[in-house]
């Protein structure tokens, strides 16, 4: 699972008021190279919740993203784009769990597939 997917998922357990972002527990992380598409990165940049993204990348072992003062002007830097691309699309959480920030309920991740199914009493 890419961090782009992580950046849009949230816990929808009944009673949880803010299920985003899900905390990551990483047991296995893999990297898969893909071609960089600058236009795609420039378009998606404004939609990313940056702090959770940086935190997630750190949890998966990548800490080269800037944490503060992240302005769209950064997108003119090839160095920034390369790091953004890598963190967003090339690092995958393969085994581990996503954890609901309010209840601590774990959603297991196996073979890169998070199981977000809710139990009957959680709906």
């Amino acid at each position, binding site marked *: *699972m*890419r961090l*782009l*997917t992580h*950046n*849009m*998922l*949230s816990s*929808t357990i009944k009673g949880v008021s*803010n*299920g*985003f972002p899900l905390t990551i527990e990483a047991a296995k992380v893999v990297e*898969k190279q*893909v071609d960089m*598409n600058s*236009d*795609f990165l420039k*378009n*998606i940049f404004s*939609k*990313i*919740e940056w702090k959770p993204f940086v935190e997630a990348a750190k949890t998966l072992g990548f800490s080269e993203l800037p944490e503060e003062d992240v302005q769209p002007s950064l997108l003119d830097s090839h160095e920034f784009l390369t790091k953004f691309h890598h963190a967003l*699309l090339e690092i995958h959480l393969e085994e581990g769990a996503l954890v609901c920030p309010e209840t601590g309920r774990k959603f297991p991740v196996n*073979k*890169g*597939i*998070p*199981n*977000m*199914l*809710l139990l009957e009493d959680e*709906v």
Partner: protein
Amino acid sequence: MKLKQLEGLLGNLDQFSAPKIELEQYPTGPHIASRMLYTAENSFEDVSDKVVADFGCGCGTLGIAAALLGADHVIGFDVDADSLEIAYLNAEDLELDVNFVQSDIRNLQCRGKIIDTVVMNPPFGTRNKGVDMDFLSVALKVASQAVYSLHKTTTREYVKKTALREYNAKSAEVLCELRYDVPKLYKFHKKKEVDIAVDLWRFVPTPTVESDV
């Protein structure tokens, strides 16, 4: 990629080995799937360089078609772990980077309109009434650009009215009518193969000013 080439690749995908009737699992055939995604890409530019979600992806056919046509990020959502396992292997065989999430579409929230386009062949709601419209309702909430979906032609007026009035779609258009071959998968099927008329829809969601979490 040419249409025939796309159809050929999709025709090689593994499909449900033991389809589950309660989930109305019918494979999306390569003919329909290739035309659906080809139209989305070539007539509307809704696929390449986009984030595409496949709702109720089953064995991953539509999402994989999107990835083959150049979507930058594809996520297949399905409630069924067995289907996702097949979908995962299908994507891997073609060396495509597709994400899969096990989730009930009806409980799904996707933050920030990151998804541009939703493609789906929802359960027709024959067994589980209204589930096709539940899928459509969620799709129109999470997509920023377009939703492509298949619905029985017999439900055309209802789908149009509900999408526009209740789900706040900006537009709802039938692109074409297709024949959906339902092979004899289940014991209750008496005929060898049934052909049903389905509409290929394109819905445009109403843009939201502020994205909600």
